Structures are given as structure tokens and as C-alpha cells.
């Protein structure tokens, strides 16, 4: 499973790439693999104020619908319309063209609570072990 070391991660399987007070958010390779074929994205519109851990949208695969939770608080600056138009992009390039939203952080200190690539790797390894039991 691909886990880029330059990103931060949430327990809800989102990745964050931040620079100063701007953060790009997507779902991880593990998340897209678990979901299977993604067919619909319901993302917050530009200007929406997100609250950390609050529901920010929905992602649907052929199998099921799942909620998306905001990994950080902030204002939505950009939404990836190309991914909305072709949701399979999230399966194909979860860390690249399949990004979801860009936000301006309300509280940059929240970044410290996210997981490192190493910690996230441990989290999904545990999950995968539980799934095979």
C-alpha cells in the first residue's frame, strides 16, 4: 500500500499536504482500495467552513456510501471538479489528480495531531489484520 512519507494522515484515512496555512486533502490509497470502484463524490462547496472531525461530504463506491470527515478545521478554497466529473480518478491517483479539496486552516496547531506516514502504516496494518481474522 502506497503511503507517501511527505504527507500527514487522519484516522479516517485521509491525507493532508500542508504548506503554511493551506492544506490539500484527499483519501489514502488504502481507503480507495477498501472502497473499491468509486462512482460518486459529494464534496463541500467553496467557502464552506469545515470543523475538524465534522462530516464534510460523502464518497460512494459501487458497494456502499461512506461519510467523509474533515481532518482539519478551515475554509474550503478549492474543490476538485475533475474528480467529481470522473470519480475513478480517486482510485487511480489518490495522492495526485484524485485530491478532493484545498482549505485555509483555521488552526494550524491541529496539524500536530495528525499521523505520520509511519504511524498511519501501523494503523492500517492493524486494520488489515482485524479484517482477515
Amino acid at each position, binding site marked *: 500500500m502506497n503511503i507517501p512519507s511527505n504527507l500527514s494522515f487522519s484516522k479516517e484515512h485521509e491525507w493532508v499536504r500542508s504548506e503554511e496555512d493551506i492544506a490539500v486533502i484527499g483519501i489514502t490509497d488504502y481507503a480507495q482500495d477498501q472502497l*473499491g*470502484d468509486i*462512482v*460518486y463524490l*459529494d464534496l463541500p462547496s467553496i467557502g464552506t467552513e469545515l470543523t475538524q472531525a465534522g462530516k464534510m461530504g460523502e464518497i*460512494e463506491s*459501487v*458497494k456502499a*456510501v461512506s461519510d467523509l470527515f474533515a481532518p482539519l478545521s478551515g475554509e474550503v478554497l478549492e474543490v476538485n471538479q475533475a474528480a*467529481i466529473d470522473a470519480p475513478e480518478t480517486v482510485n487511480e491517483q489518490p495522492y495526485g489528480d484524485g485530491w478532493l479539496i484545498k482549505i485555509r486552516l483555521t488552526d494550524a496547531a491541529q496539524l500536530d495531531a495528525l499521523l505520520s506516514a509511519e504511524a498511519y502504516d501501523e494503523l492500517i496494518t492493524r486494520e488489515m489484520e482485524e479484517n482477515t481474522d
Partner: protein
Amino acid sequence: MTDDLRSLPLDALHAELGARFAPFAGWRMPVQYAGIVEEHRAVRERAGVFDVSHMGRIYVSGPAAAQSLRAAVTYDVASLAAGEAHYALMCDDGGGILDDLFVYRMAADRFLVVNNAANAEIGREQIGRHLVDGAELDDRQSTTVMLALQGPASAEILSGSVNGELPKRRRCAELSFGAAPLFACRTGYTGEDGFELIAEVEAGSGLLSALLDVGVTPCGLGARDTLRLEAALPLYGNDIDATTNPWEAGLGFAVSLDDGVDFAGRAALEATYALPIERKLACLQAQGRGIMRPGLPVLHGGQTVASMSSGGFSPLLGVSIGMAYLPVELTEHGTELEVDVRGKLLAASVVPRPFYRRRKTS
């Protein structure tokens, strides 16, 4: 919980193939291998194979087999010739649908009933209750494997793997795989040409490997559901159950009322048949993005008129499709409806049934 799940006889082979498993009707079942959409397309374009050994397989044999089975199901199975197959329902005395199933007449005095895994027990009981002298029931679910080979290339592929003349559409025949007997039914649940194949476990394992070796795509329950939905084939528990009747479900062809036999549910079904149909299982196609799922409310003019009985994404059409019991006056093709997807209204229209129909080649 998960410990109580039954595993398919070929569970280890599926695990080797990279299957993801999930519980279904008490079984640990492969849901997908490479991915649902890829598996779906393989079946529409060439061929896929599903392990459906979880389904019930009940044999009824003896000189009174036809008479006994007829009394347990809605279709006049006694009218089938040897080698013919037909879809039927099993109803309670009140006419409520207990299960849907396929009946294969293997010989004058021998039938095979294939029913849903979740209802296997109910089927055994109901058939057992209607057995008369000269008929016996044999449950072979745990000693055999059942594979569904589905897709336009199925016949060509199967003829290269087995001996014997393949049955024609909706017929069945005894073939052999190597030295082992193989029962082949030209039926399925995908809307494609294809075969359902039953063999002892060892031969079934060999057959599955042989099919995979010639490039047949392993498919799981996920693709089975998207394929059957495009073909608008009902799923028991979603589209039909004890509260639905055969005619509103479009399954009148599964009910024989003119042979005079007093089968389970007959009186109630006759009374229902005499009444006008008030609602019909209709096909809905979404007009925008968003996915219709079972249970979501269907609205017309702001009023809730139904709820989705089945729904999902159609890989073929690239939009969401589904079925719902609509008041008959709303079942005309082109009728505009809305589906309430967790607070967002998704436009949908009534379209002809089924969503997908294969090109007839056999």
C-alpha cells in the same frame, strides 16, 4: 458471529485468487477479486465465473416427484419435459412469497431445485411437507460445488472444457468433466448467456481451475448484484418478499393457476389475481450524479410514493439505476420522479425493463 459463517468448499482457492470476503446469508462469500466494475465488464464482454455453492440444491426423485414438487411451488413443474427448466416461486398459504427458485427437470422422475441461500431451510421444509409416497428429497448442498459461468463467450469456453452436448437456453443436461459427472443448466442471474454447473467438490475445483486457466474472470457477489440489477432480475428480500405479489413484481409467468392443482398459496394467489394491480415494480434511471440505494424514498410532485427496493451504480450506463414499486399510474416510461438521497433530491425517470438486454445468439 463470524465464527458461525459457513465457508465455501473452494474457500482456499478463492483466497489464493485474492478474493475479498464478506458474510452473506450465513456464508463467507467472495465479494470481489480485481474489482466489481472490471468483473462486471468481463461478464458483459466475454466470460466470468462465480462460485454460487452457497445456493440451495435440493433433488426430488421418484415416480411421485413431479406431483410432490408441483404442490410446493407456484409453477406447473409437472408440465416440464426432461431437460427443461423454469423459474418458480414458493409461497405460504397466504400467498406471500417465501422464496424464488429455479426448477430443473433432469429426468421424468428427477428434479433439481436451486433456491436462495438465505431460504435454503424454508425450501427444504416446504418441499418436504409436500412429499407424497413415491418421492424423496435429497439435499446435496454441502457435497457439491455450483459454479456460474456467465457471458457471451460462455458456450465456446465451456465446450472446450467438458464432454457432451451443451444444453440450449433454459435447458439442462448431464455432461462430464474428465471422468466426473457434471450437471449443466443454461441459466443464470446476469442477463447474459451462460451456464450453472454442478459437480462433486473435487471435480468442481478442477473445473474452476480449468476455466480460470483459459482466461475466465473470477467474479464475486458485488458484480453478481450489479449484473442482475442491469438485467432487472429481482432479488429476494429486496424486490420480492412475503408482502409483494407475483403480478406486481412482473413474475406472473412463474405462477400456473390453470392446471387445477392445489399448490401452497393457490387460493390466496387466485384471489389476488382477480384484483386490479395497484403498483408495479418499475425501473428507474437517475438523470444526474448520485446513487439510488435500497430503502431511499421515491417522490412524485413532492409526495413520497414508494421506496427503492434495489438500487446501485450501472457500470454499463454510467449512472445509478434501481427498481421500486410505483403506483401503476406512475409507471409510464418517461415519468419524472425524484429520489431523496439523504436530503438531496436526485432526478430519475421511469425507463423500460430491463435496463440491459443481451443480443440473442442462442
